[in-house]
């Protein structure tokens, strides 16, 4: 049994938290003022010379590789915040309060944990970070269910959670929380961004067939894409639900062949998407002619790992992503450069969003002048920034969702390198994917818990 050297600190903070809870009073003060250093809150670093972030990513299970890439990005972000390395996006972010000496003069340390892509395990791991390691913020995720579970924990515990990769509308809709923030885009934005491109490349007279993963994320994406395509004048032939982890999708794909549909939309993610796309292509769908048109396949949410898993099958297939390393703006280039030099290959979109989230949180603390969560949250709400790879971006106060340009991409037909899997077809401006926060309902909840 090994023990880390700093367990003395964490032991004290647990006892402190324990007594506070035992007394039934979580947070005593009933007032707050800006820069209230004396404010007592969970895991207040106080006079310590460092603060701890928690990075909670899937290390086992189907998304372990994505988790590993996220972890690389987090490590890089911590380096840059502490003033090590070449500084990455700290050189391009506008406005910026971080000075490369940690946050508010405190060096940033981090702990890691394994979510196993299960809500229970993720929350257990997050609680370990909060209760044992004393983190001031935690971040991570590769699935919406897990992200939402962690986000509601954040609200209960009074520790900010910065969402990693989560694409469901619910994360910043029905299940939004005051202590949860999402930089990644969502299913609604995928639909809104795809709309014009689909119209341009496939026309307005199309018949679409949906295969949808039978759980919450699949349903919200199906709904969003359907709204968009039906708005274009497309007809929805059928929308079929497939069990999660079905493996062999042949029994769902064969009915597509003679359904009269000329577009197949795969609302699948991860392994399901790799399998369903591989098999759909094997059934010859991509080479088919229906209603006098070329049959098309659309994968609304792309990720590089999925593209790698599906191999050559993704060629020419449309979808959206949050970010791609081939972008030419200064922020993206700075990030790709420092990531590439550190690890020898370009970052994925999951790595990008995790890196940005960490920087944004640190910067918000610097701007608020305190780690006191309500003040940090206010500093993030309505914050406008640029130079982080997606153009001008707004952290909307009403639902804690970032609004920025969305990339419509296509599987690269002639890739020049093994990383060059996706080509950017269009950068859809933020204004086109912005929506009214009230359409998804939900309640952020109070600042103080």
């Amino acid at each position, binding site marked *: 049994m090994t023990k880390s050297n700093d367990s003395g600190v964490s032991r004290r903070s647990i006892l402190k938290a324990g007594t506070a809870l035992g007394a039934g009073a979580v947070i005593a003060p009933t007032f707050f003022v800006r820069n209230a250093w004396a404010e007592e809150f969970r895991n207040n670093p106080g006079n310590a010379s460092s603060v701890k972030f928690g990075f909670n990513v899937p290390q086992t299970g189907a998304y372990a590789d994505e988790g590993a890439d996220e972890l690389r990005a987090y490590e890089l972000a911590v380096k840059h915040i502490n003033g090590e390395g070449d500084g990455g996006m700290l050189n391009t972010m506008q406005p910026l309060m971080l000075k490369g000496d940690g946050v508010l003069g405190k060096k940033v340390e981090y702990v890691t944990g394994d979510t196993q892509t299960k809500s229970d395990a993720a929350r257990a791991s997050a609680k370990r970070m909060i209760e044992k390691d004393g983190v001031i913020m935690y971040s991570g995720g590769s699935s919406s269910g897990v992200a939402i579970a962690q986000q509601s924990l954040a609200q209960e515990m009074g520790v900010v959670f910065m969402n990693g990769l989560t694409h469901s509308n619910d994360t910043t809709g029905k299940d939004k929380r005051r202590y949860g923030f999402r930089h990644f885009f969502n299913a609604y934005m995928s639909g809104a961004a795809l709309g014009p491109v689909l119209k341009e490349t496939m026309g307005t007279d199309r018949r679409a067939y949906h295969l949808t993963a039978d759980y919450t994320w699949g349903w919200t994406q199906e709904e969003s894409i359907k709204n968009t395509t039906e708005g274009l004048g497309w007809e929805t032939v*059928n929308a079929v639900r497939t069990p999660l982890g079905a493996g062999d999708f*042949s029994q769902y794909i064969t009915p597509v062949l003679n359904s009269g549909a000329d577009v197949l939309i795969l609302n699948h993610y991860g392994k399901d998407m*790799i399998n369903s796309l591989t098999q759909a292509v094997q*059934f*010859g769908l991509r080479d088919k002619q229906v209603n006098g048109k070329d049959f098309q396949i659309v994968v609304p949410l792309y990720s590089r790992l999925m593209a790698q898993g599906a191999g050559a099958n993704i060629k020419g297939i449309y979808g959206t992503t949050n970010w791609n390393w081939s972008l030419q703006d200064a922020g993206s280039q700075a990030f*790709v450069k420092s990531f590439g030099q550190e690890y020898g290959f370009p970052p994925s979109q999951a790595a990008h969003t995790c890196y940005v989230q960490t920087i944004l949180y640190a910067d918000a603390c610097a701007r608020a002048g305190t780690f006191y969560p309500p003040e940090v949250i206010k500093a993030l709400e309505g914050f406008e920034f640029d130079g982080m790879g997606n153009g001008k971006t707004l952290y909307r106060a009403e639902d804690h969702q970032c609004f920025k340009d969305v990339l419509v991409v296509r599987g690269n037909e002639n890739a020049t390198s093994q990383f060059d899997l996706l080509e950017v077809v269009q950068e859809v401006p933020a204004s086109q994917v912005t929506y009214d926060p009230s359409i998804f309902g939900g309640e952020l909840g109070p600042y103080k818990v």
Partner: protein
Amino acid sequence: MDVILLQLLNGLDKGGAYALIALGLTIIFGTLGVVNFAHGALFMLGAFCAVSVQALLTISKKVKDESIKFFDAYKEIPYLEAWWGDTGAMIIDYAVPISILVAIPLMLLIGLGMERGLIRYFYKRPHAEQILVTFGLAIVVQELIKAQFGANPIPTPAPEVIAGSANVGLWVGLGESVVYPWWRLIYLAFAGVVIASAFAFLNLTTYGMVVRAGMADRETVGLLGINIQRRFTIVFGMAAVIAGLAGVMYTPILPPDYHMGMDFLVLSFVVVVVGGMGSLGGAVLAGFVLGILQSFASMNEVKSILPGIDQIIIYLIAVVILLVRPRGLLGRKGVMES
């Protein structure tokens, strides 16, 4: 009609995979009396034979990629392509068929090693302990594979010439609308051949007959001076080869990842139980029956009447069979019941 035919093909195809795994499980249970929870791991190892062969064939030299300016990126050009051009590319294209040749001896060795190294110490121990130790082995094997190959599925495509679909409809007079991927047809035929040869081996060769005699009455065969244990060891190796081949051939359909064995494990146990523990014919029959039923349960027409039926059909059938006919479709009475 088209739809029915296609779903039937889907079912047969799925059933082929189930039957191959269940056949191996049953052989092991029938000969050695061991419930092998690591059988799914053998299927997965077979699939990773294909991945490894592909990785070996594509060992690459690194060439600086000038198109990427921010950091030192390298293009990877397989030596085979660099040396032999198109011939090399074609060898790489045939990675999956080539890996069958590699998988047979490799899986045989793995099977023999597993039986000699671990399983034989568990013959006399309760079924529960056999389940547990092989379950532990399955976890260890899959974690080792994950440590080496990562968790993301790895694409292992079929050779280019048979990447497309066959016009099955024309063969049976249903017109051009019924197409089915070549590789899946090959898989079906392959499953048939493997199953037939396993049966032929056990039923038509003297060696196989002795094994079957040993399955029925181990003591008597032993008394005749035959080293039945040694034959059983070899049979275990055979079962491993069958599972491995099922895995190799499945890779173009399902890009392999470290967890695919576990995904198939529960299903294949259900297949074995439905077919009847210890009955080879039952395992094969149940594999195909369950595959076909699963395909038909997934049709929209069925799902609109019984929502979610495609999620549970296999388990539902298992429950019904176990309650109505506990020895399974073709099982002998009394096996494993006490």
